[in-house]
């Protein structure tokens, strides 16, 4: 496998983890957030700082990133989730805009617009795993472990309660569900995973700056989840593969000038989203998997 494809596979695995994390919010909790890149960014900065000042350990960066994003999301979720539906989307948009400014201005922590550079190559328990194959293997192992954890949670009572809130908040309340707690747990869980993905991202890139954590990134993650299939386990993975591979695949197609690639890509995204919403609103994996959720 060429270095380019390995790099793409690493990024794909990290973004799969990221879209899986947003799927916990959107797919299972019905909580639409356009600020997910913020928690990805917080995790990335935390992971980068850990790598720069402690050790570039993959697990340490993922755990540190997850913890930082989880704590921040807990602090923000409790007041933010008091508002419903579209108001939460607007609140998350506001958070995304504020966070982008903070990422740019808090130079002591984020390195400002220039970002944090010189992040050392990744290791695992002191062993060098900077070889792309090794790093990819560790990322895949983390992704599979998180998928198994999310799968188990969503098939259990927590997942059922969360989906009940998504389907009918008032009915869930009428059956004793404490909706703010459930929603907060979903947000914190999703943001911990996003933060862990951020920690891995920092080590993969060996450089992080604000451009990776903007509104565009949040929208891209959301598109991955929606196109792949909300509320399914494989949907976010399919969405990620499609949206990450598409630009790469387009660059190999003859007849498209490199300067027009961006426009062609946007056109294809738009068309794909429109067609999906008309013919398969549950996303690519939506219909096939949807029935399996919520059972014993």
């Amino acid at each position: 496998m060429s270095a380019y494809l390995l790099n793409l596979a690493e990024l794909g695995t990290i973004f799969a983890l990221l879209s899986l994390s947003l799927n916990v919010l959107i797919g299972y909790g019905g909580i639409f957030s356009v600020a997910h890149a913020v928690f990805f960014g917080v995790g990335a900065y935390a992971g980068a700082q850990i790598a720069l000042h402690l050790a570039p350990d993959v697990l340490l960066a993922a755990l540190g990133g997850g913890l930082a994003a989880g704590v921040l999301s807990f602090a923000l979720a409790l007041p933010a989730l008091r508002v419903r539906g579209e108001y939460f989307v607007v609140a998350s948009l506001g958070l995304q805009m504020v966070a982008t400014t903070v990422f740019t201005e808090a130079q002591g922590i984020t390195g400002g617009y220039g970002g944090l550079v010189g992040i050392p190559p990744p290791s695992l328990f002191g062993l060098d795993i900077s070889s792309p194959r090794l790093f990819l293997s560790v990322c895949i192992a983390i992704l599979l472990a998180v998928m198994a954890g999310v799968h188990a949670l969503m098939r259990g009572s927590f997942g059922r309660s969360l989906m009940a809130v998504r389907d009918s908040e008032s009915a869930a309340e009428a059956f004793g569900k404490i909706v703010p707690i459930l929603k907060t747990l979903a947000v914190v869980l999703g943001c911990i995973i996003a933060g862990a993905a951020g920690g891995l991202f920092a080590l993969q890139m060996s450089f992080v700056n604000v451009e990776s954590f903007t509104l565009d990134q949040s929208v891209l993650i959301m598109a991955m989840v929606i196109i792949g299939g909300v509320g399914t386990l494989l949907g976010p993975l399919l969405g990620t593969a499609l949206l990450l591979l598409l630009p790469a695949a387009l660059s190999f197609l003859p007849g498209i000038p490199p300067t027009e690639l961006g426009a062609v890509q946007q056109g294809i995204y738009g068309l794909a989203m429109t067609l999906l919403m008309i013919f398969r609103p549950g996303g690519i994996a939506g219909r096939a998997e949807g029935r399996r959720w919520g059972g014993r």
Partner: protein
Amino acid sequence: MSPILSVRGLAKHFGGVAAVQGVDLDLPAGLITALVGPNGAGKTTLFNLITGAVEADTGRVMLAGKELARRTPARMARLGVARSFQDLRLFQSMSVQANVLTAIEPHAWFWQPGGRRARARRLQATEMALAETGLSALTDALAAELAYAERKFLSLARILATGAQIWLLDEPASGLDPASRARFSTLLRKHAAQGVAICLVEHNLDIVSALADRIVFLDQGRKLAEGEPQAILRDPALAAIYFGERRA
């Protein structure tokens, strides 16, 4: 018979509109009470006030004689007050079994307490509720894919499985065919006989007269009359209000 749930002077205004005005209501164990009245009488709002889905301006709600000051739907559910909704509000994307199971899983955390035994008990309660409502064959079907009558019975199965002692049912039999209606009435009668206090909002007066032990007649948020079904339903003044021929 002493009431399990009592309401005293419950009132709610929405802006300038008095939705419920100082209503008193008693729900005794083992009796079926029907709330009857024209559209906009405040019947559903009364359910919302009792369960805390809407905050009352004034008034008290007492459960077994104990006043419940800060009511929320979740707290009332935990205290054994179960309700259904006019528009059912099933968990559409979930299976029939998951709908019922979710209704009886009390905690919001990542797991339920009590281990395997408690889980087995919940599964058993789910199976019994589905059997009683005739939905056993549809355990794995999605709620969204059910026929109308099945959806109605699923709404009831969720309540039944909770073991709640007070049921507030909002138009539970509307739109049912005669056979389903009869099955539904038998089910309600059986549980009332076991001591459940049932309060239902119902527009179909045939169902009300066949099922209810007492009727509370509401109009424009006020309680106009209360008594045995035949006495209330034969009152020409109430009939005129009910059918919109005149206001109270």
